[in-house]
Structure formats: C-alpha cells, structure tokens
C-alpha cells in the first residue's frame, strides 16, 4: 500500500512547483474582489462581477497590463463587514493580492481600510458612498473612483435650487440609510431656501403603499422626495402611478437606479434624481463602453457596471503611469492622476483619494430605442460644484 501511494504523493507535491514554473513566463496580475454575491446586495454584486470579467477580457485581448494577463479572484462577503475583512485578508496573505476592488457596503470598506497599511495593499472603491471614507476614516492607501453619497445629493440640491417648488414631503424606508438620506435632504433643502413640511417612514417590506399615498395627498406638498430601494421602491412607484400621484407633484429621489425603476415600468416616468452612472451619458468614452457591454451581455450597463468600469480604468491608468504593480508605485501614481473616463474628465485628488468628477441629474422618460422608460440627463454640474472640500464629508 505504502509503495503504491508514494509516487502519487510525490506527483502531488511536485504539481504546484511545476505550475509555478509554467506561470513564471506570464505572471498573472491578480486583483481581489471580495463582494456581495448573495444576500441583499446580490444584484449589485453581480454587476461588479460581470463588469470585472468584461474588463479582464478586454485587457487580456490587448496583451494584458504591462504584458501580464489580468486575473480576478472573486469571493462572496454577503455584504457583511466581518466576512469582507476575512476574505480580503485571505486574498492578501494566501494569494499575494495587493489590489482590492469592488467592495459592496460602505461598512465593509470601512472595516478593511484600517488594515491596508499593514497588508501593504491598496483599495479603489467603485460602490461605497459613505462620506467618511474620504473624510474622517481616510487612509493613504484608499481611493474612491465613484460618486459618493454626498456628491450625488449635492447635484440634486443644485438642480432643485432653480425649481419653482418650495414645500417638500419625504417618504423613505425605515432603516439607517433611509433615515439618513431624508436627514441629508432636509438639510440641503434648508440650504437652498426650501422647506420640508413633513416626512413618513415605511417599514422595510411594505407591500401596500396606499396608506402612505393617502398620507402624502393629505399633506399636499408641492414636491415629494423618496428614498426607497428594491422591491419596496418598485411597489411604491407602481401604486403611486395608479393613484395618479405624479400628476399632482414632481417626485425626486437620491439616486435613480435602473434596478428599481426598470420593474416599475411606465410608473417611473417623470422621476428625477441624482445619478452615479448611467448609460445615457452622451460621451464618446461612455458610448464605446455601452457598445462593448451590449455586445458582450446583450443588456445595458447599470449603475455599478459603469462605476466598476470607471474604477478599473483608474487602476489601468495608474499602473501604466507607474510602470509597475507594487502597492507603493501604484499609490504614488494614483495621486493627482488625471484621465478621460466614461463620465468625462476625472482627477483623483491627492489629498483624500476622491475622484473629482461631474455630477449628473437625470429624469426617467420614454426614449426611442429602449424597451422600458430610461433615464435622460437633464443637468450636469462641474466637479468643482459637486465635490466636497478635501477630507470633508459634506458642504457646510
């Protein structure tokens, strides 16, 4: 028994060494993506994953990055900070990954960021919106390529400043994000000379919104602000349209996302909101990305497809500028990096890693060539107008 087993064992031990030799010629560049592939954020995680695959395919078809093929390592965190921290650490220690991308919840990013220096790794955010990431929680190895929550809200406030409506009512989901969204919005209203005449919070999982619609009609505001996501948001939009609520008042929201407007169908028409990314941005780089994405997946890219692509393009530009992939060189190259992204001109500012970029306000409308109502850009604001001061999370 022992004799027959020995050669097999020897072969097994030799296998990693052999593959190590064959790899040495074209050492792949491994990029770590610990993201939410199941759970509440699964739909967003699938956008991150499919866009990473598309990008790897595009880069590898052109001969890789600095001549090295790009390889993504995906791990499911379910959006839980403790999982994310563990998976990221495994990637760094076991797989020798030094570049992390695609983290889903801001809480996950905030859990990982303090460890980056110890791990000698860097992180480029594509999704995380919390203002603190580039403010009080900032670390030198973290960068944010995406539009942050405060930046999105700022663009919307700038647009509303010129609107004729003065009295707003808010409806949101009754949990941390919904309440903070309404609080931020009410603060912004005060800053632009408008007022909030009330708000109501619906429990997560509310199916029948008729009572809330009645409540809004009774308050009779000039405009309505909503902070709803997922099935809740879809249900509200459909039911509000059935009660003809939108004929009485315009409805605005923090972020217009196709994930929640698409299932609402015609009911989403007229909804106005900030936009982190949309296929509707008419810009040569974006049109090329949209065409490439449609050719691969036969679908339009969603919010986090675009944001993830932008983060990867930031990484590509930094690696090319540095001519290396080690943490120190890439971090140095990222500081004050400028590029022309799918959202227009973009600059990673050196002081807190935030990408200065344009802010967009979109309106959902019926559009030629699209099966469902889709967003169209109604206002664009310059990076200077929508980006908070260095290491500040708001605009006070």
């Amino acid at each position, binding site marked *: 028994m022992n004799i027959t087993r020995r050669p097999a064992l020897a072969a097994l031990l030799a296998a990693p060494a052999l593959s190590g030799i064959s790899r040495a010629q074209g050492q792949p560049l491994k990029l770590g993506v610990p993201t939410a592939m199941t759970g509440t954020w699964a739909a967003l995680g699938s956008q991150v994953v499919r866009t990473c695959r598309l990008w790897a395919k595009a880069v590898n078809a052109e001969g890789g990055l600095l001549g090295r093929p790009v390889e993504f390592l995906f791990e499911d965190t379910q959006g839980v900070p403790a999982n994310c921290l563990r998976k990221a650490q495994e990637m760094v220690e076991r797989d020798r990954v030094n570049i992390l991308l695609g983290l889903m919840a801001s809480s996950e990013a905030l859990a990982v960021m303090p460890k980056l220096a110890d791990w000698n790794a860097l992180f480029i955010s594509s999704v995380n919106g919390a203002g603190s990431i580039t403010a009080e929680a900032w670390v030198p190895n973290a960068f944010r390529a995406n539009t942050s929550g405060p930046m999105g809200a700022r663009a919307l406030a700038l647009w509303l400043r010129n609107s004729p409506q003065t009295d707003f009512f808010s409806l949101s989901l009754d949990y941390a994000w919904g309440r903070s969204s309404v609080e931020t919005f009410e603060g912004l209203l005060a800053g632009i000379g408008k007022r909030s005449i009330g708000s*109501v919070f619906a429990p997560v999982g509310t199916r029948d919104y008729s009572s809330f619609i009645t409540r809004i009609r009774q308050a009779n505001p000039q405009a309505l602000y909503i902070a709803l996501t997922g099935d809740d948001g879809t249900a509200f939009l*459909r*039911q509000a349209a059935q*009660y003809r609520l939108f004929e009485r008042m315009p409805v605005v929201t923090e972020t217009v996302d196709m994930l929640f407007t698409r*299932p609402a*169908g015609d009911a989403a028409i007229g909804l106005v909101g900030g936009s982190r990314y949309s296929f509707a941005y008419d810009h040569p780089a974006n049109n090329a990305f949209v065409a490439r994405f449609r050719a691969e997946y036969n679908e339009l890219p969603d919010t986090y497809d675009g944001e993830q692509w932008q983060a990867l393009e930031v990484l590509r530009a930094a690696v090319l500028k540095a001519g290396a992939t080690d943490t120190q060189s890439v971090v140095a190259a990222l500081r004050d990096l400028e590029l022309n992204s799918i959202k227009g001109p973009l600059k990673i500012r050196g002081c807190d890693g935030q990408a200065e970029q344009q802010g967009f306000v979109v309106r959902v409308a019926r559009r030629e060539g699209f099966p469902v109502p889709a967003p169209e850009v109604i206002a664009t604001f310059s990076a200077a107008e929508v980006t908070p001061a260095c290491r500040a999370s708001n605009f006070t």
Partner: protein
Amino acid sequence: MDPLALFTLQVLNALSLSALLFFIALGLTLIFGIMRVVNFAHGAVFMLGAYCGVAVQSATGSFAASLLAAPLAGAALGLAFERSALSRLYAREHSAFLLVTFGLALALTEAIRLVWGADARQTELPEALAGIVFVMDEPFPVYRLLLIGAGGLCWLLCWLGLQRTRLGLLLRAASQNPTMTAALGNDVGRVRAMVFALACALAALGGALAAPLLSASLGLGSNVIIDAFVIVMIGGMGSFIGTVAGSLLVGFAQTFGNFYVPELALGMTYALMITVLVLRPGGLFGRPE
C-alpha cells in the same frame, strides 16, 4: 383633504388589501381545516401565481388569460405535490408535513429564480383597469375596486360551495371525521387532493391579482405568508368565517396603522393577534385545541 373623504379612501384601501390577503389565507385555512396540514409553501405558490400571471400576460397580451392560467398552474402543482409527497405522509406525525411543505417552498423559490431570474417582473394593466374613479373628489384606482369585488365574489362562491353543494357537505364531513366519512364509502384521499389543488389555485389567483400592484419578485412569498398565518390564527385555524374576519381585521389594522402610527404598524398586526389569542386561545371562530 376632507376628513370624511379621507376615511372613505382608507376604508377602500383596507378592503382591497383584505381582499388580496383573503385569497392566500383562505387556501391555508382550507388545507388546515380538512387535512390538518400547515402548508408553509402557500406563500411560494402565491408568488408562483404572480410570476405565471406576468409570463402569460407578456406572452398573450391578455390580463384575463393570466387570471385563468395562474390558478390552473397552481392547481396542477398542488395536485402533483399532494399525490406525490403529502399522500404518503398522512399516517405520520405533523412534523413531517412541516418539513416537506417548507422544502417545497424553498424548491419553488429556487425554481422561480432559475426560470425567471433574480430581477422583479411586471406587466402593465389593461387600459380598462388602469383608470381611476373619483370617490368624494379623490382619485381611486379602478383596479383596487376590482380587487374588492374579486375578494367578495370569492368569499360568496366558497361559502355557497361549502354550505349548499354536495361537494361542500363532503368537505365538511371529511374535516370533522375523516374515518367515518371514508367508512361511508367516500374516497377521502381524493377529497384531500382536491382541497389541496383548490387551495393552491386560490393562492396562485391571488398572486396573479397582486402582480399589477406589487410586481412578481422573489421576496413576495415569504413576505405574504406571515400575514396569512396571522389571519388564520386570529380567525381560528380551519374556520372559514374566521378567515374572512381575520383578513378584514389585518387589512384594516395595517392600512389604518400605516396612516396614523407608521412606526408601529408592523407591531399592530401582531398586537392584534396576541390580544385575540389571549382572549380566545382558539382564535375568534375556532375551537380551542
């Protein structure tokens, strides 16, 4: 808004929600009353009805066809499940039913995810039902009136069926004493299969009716089954009239609760259930067990 108009609107809102809840709770109570089975898969069948309705309406363009196809699909699934799985378990204890119906709920949800994907699905209402009527100068959707009518009609037909037909007599007999019913030469196995199929058809019809309001989404089943259980507990397990009362109570509690105390609305439904169970442990119209 005029207080009377406000109140009238809220009553109509509550009735339309009660009607939707009635479709799923009625099937649950029928299955329990006649088969002594707690069907955890009932929410998943409701969700299946919503998806089937949307699929059929997208394919044929007819909303009426979706209201026909969904209950047929529900009945077919119910029949197949009762014959292949439940019928083998009647001799066993109750925990077997819990496991197997819970398993069906999980399997159905995953099957729906495989067939239709993770994104919510929806269609638009036909022109005739998408309109509004003015109730005391306030717009109210025609479709919600239709839901109230459908709930009322379902209640009437089921009541007549149970009380005035030979089949209803058989159902009531099988519920009260299955051994005696079988001894008198009736095929109790067939009665059980029929009841299960009928209950699943009702849930699927409810799902198809709910789709234009809520869209067909993966969370729908687990979301709605909890309300259905609460209704059945309030009304009394297995009581037909109790289910009617329970649906109305829960519909009104949620609608008025969401309006006056939205932060406590979720708790109100449970507070209602606890109050009823403390005062009458068997439910409003049930027998204490």
